[in-house]
């Protein structure tokens, strides 16, 4: 589904990703772990199409299409979703209106019929109940006055509503207490399917206790330096990232 080859990305004149390669197949959950400054969030942002991330080398294909050639809104409609590490507040834009505009813009792009407000609300209510979120959330402006946890849950709610093919969770666990973390993980687990892939970017292992990854990658200094099964996350937890550095040092020497 997603194939990243030798990706080099520069941000504000600084090389952040330095030859990252990664392949994610439909139905798989991949975790990307790594120390601060390794380029984890850059990966999420460059996949979603944020401005200011200059791809200097390499390629990203999504379902055999050149993902990097698409505008951010096209990537979303093609099925890529980024759950933001820091969701922004948008005063004055009603959450329901925003969600419907987003869903219908995607449907229009894909040549599907747009949902009327009845059909849309029905879908919203289904997703809300699954996530144990309050209706009240819908009447507020997007993320405005939301607590950190509410913002993250709102990201996952959008994920549930938009039903992307590839969901990238950028440090969704940061700032969540254990209950919120479990709720988010439950929602993600409900959405796992053979047609959908997840890229879970995290600094800590604890989210992976609840979202079991198929593959764990360690991202350090702009590259994937180690890949393995879930046990890799546990080793990292035990030894810290310094352990990875030690392991790669001889190879790169």
């Amino acid at each position, binding site marked *: 589904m997603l194939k990243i080859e030798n990706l080099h990305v520069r941000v504000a004149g600084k090389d952040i990703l330095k030859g990252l390669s990664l392949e994610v197949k439909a139905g798989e959950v991949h975790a990307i772990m790594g120390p601060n400054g390794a380029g984890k969030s850059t990966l999420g942002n460059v996949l979603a199409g944020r401005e200011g991330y200059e791809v200097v080398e390499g390629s990203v294909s999504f379902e055999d299409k050149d993902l990097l050639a698409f505008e951010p*809104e096209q990537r979303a409609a093609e099925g890529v979703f980024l759950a933001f590490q820091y969701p922004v507040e*948008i*005063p*004055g834009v009603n959450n329901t209106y*925003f969600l419907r505009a987003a869903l219908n813009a995607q449907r229009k*792009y894909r040549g599907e019929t747009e949902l009327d407000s009845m059909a849309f609300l029905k879908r919203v209510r289904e997703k809300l109940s699954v996530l144990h979120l309050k209706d009240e959330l819908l009447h507020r402006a997007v993320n405005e006055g939301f607590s950190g946890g509410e913002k993250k849950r709102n990201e996952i709610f959008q994920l549930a509503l938009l039903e992307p093919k590839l969901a990238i969770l950028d440090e969704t666990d940061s700032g969540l207490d254990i209950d919120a973390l479990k709720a988010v993980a439950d929602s993600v687990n409900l959405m796992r399917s053979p047609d959908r892939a997840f890229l879970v970017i995290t600094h800590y292992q604890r989210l992976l206790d609840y979202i079991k990854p198929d593959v764990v990658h360690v991202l350090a200094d702009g590259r994937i330096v180690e890949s393995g099964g879930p046990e890799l996350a546990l080793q990292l937890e035990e030894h810290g990232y310094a352990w990875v550095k030690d392991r790669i040092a001889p190879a790169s020497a």
Partner: protein
Amino acid sequence: MSALLASFKTAFEALPTALVEAHGHGDARRGAMSAVLADGLPGHRSESWKYTSLRALSARSVVPANSVAVDVDAALLADIPSPRMVFVNSRFDSALSKIDVLPAGIEVQALSQALAGDDARASFVLGRRFERNDEVFARLNAALAGDGALVRVAADTVIVEPLHLVFIGVPAAADLGLHLRHLIELRDNAALTVVEHHLSSGSQRHLHNHLCHVHLKPGAILRHARLQDEDAGASLITRTDAVLASNTHYRRVDVELGAALSRHELNVSLQGEGARLYSGGALLADGRRHVDTRLGIEHVARDTSCELVWRGLANERGRAVFHGGILIKAGADGSAAMLSNKNLLLSDTAEIDTQPVLEIHADEVQAAHGATVGRLDESVLFYLRSRGIPAELARALLIGAFLREPLALLDDSVVADALAARLSLRLGQTGVSG
């Protein structure tokens, strides 16, 4: 003498004697006219006209509206319910107006009708003098206005249905100079909602000059919305002078969407203890439009407050000018003043001038003011686009939300929603983009 003033002089000389002398205001009218001619139009050295040049306007000539009946596009009025007063090219149009059936306690009359009658109290505002030489349009209005809306609500009367005041410009053989004078007066504990509509039935380059007096007696509550959706060729000079007695609430929102030039002076004097002003507006300056709002808020009595929320947008070659003047006089202790003016500057050729001016001569005052000029937040745009919303729609969403913010000050969701709908329509029409 500029061509503009010469044309006003001619217009004044042609006024019917009966109108000039009506209710004993002849001297006041003549005095106002000669003051205009003596002082001329203010130039860029005049502090209050520094950012709005009258040079282009001064070279033009306008003529008074004649009494020939004109056709008005019926669609303009389709959504405006009764009660409503309709003025076409500054003349009260009784056929288009709907004021036959009014709730008890509200009196509505056209100034032209009042002047034709013998009740001088009906037009007492006409006696007011304008001393400053930059008050040229108020003076012109004092000299030339022959029509307008006079609205009175009796004490302890709450009028639920909004009163609509509709001003329609219609193309004429020549550009017109139109002067209207209004009075909205709420007696003790009265409440009213007024919605002004400034609309155009076809392309015209008239000069519209409105002078509105608002008098709120103790405990009165006035909600006042003004939708300015004039033709892109029109020039509009508006001045509102409001006087607030104790424990009054004046909630006012101005939505400026049209006209080539729109200048609004909003002067509010908080004269009674506990008087509250909530005033906000959206200034949309795109194309080559020039939109200028000048607030003159004066706290005179103790424990008065104002909350001012103004939003401006300039795009293409447009220019938005905002002056937020707040004066807290000695003795107005315990007053609170909050001014927020945020602006979006969406092109390199557009301009925004914002100037909050706070002057405090009292004690225990709470005052806060802030003015910003910025672009659309790229991180917010990206967030919307990352959810599949195309860039153009994302911009429109953010701009709409930005400009709608002041509407909540009205505390009337029905009127606020109607204004929001007009705003959205206008933003959709022009495809405002950043």
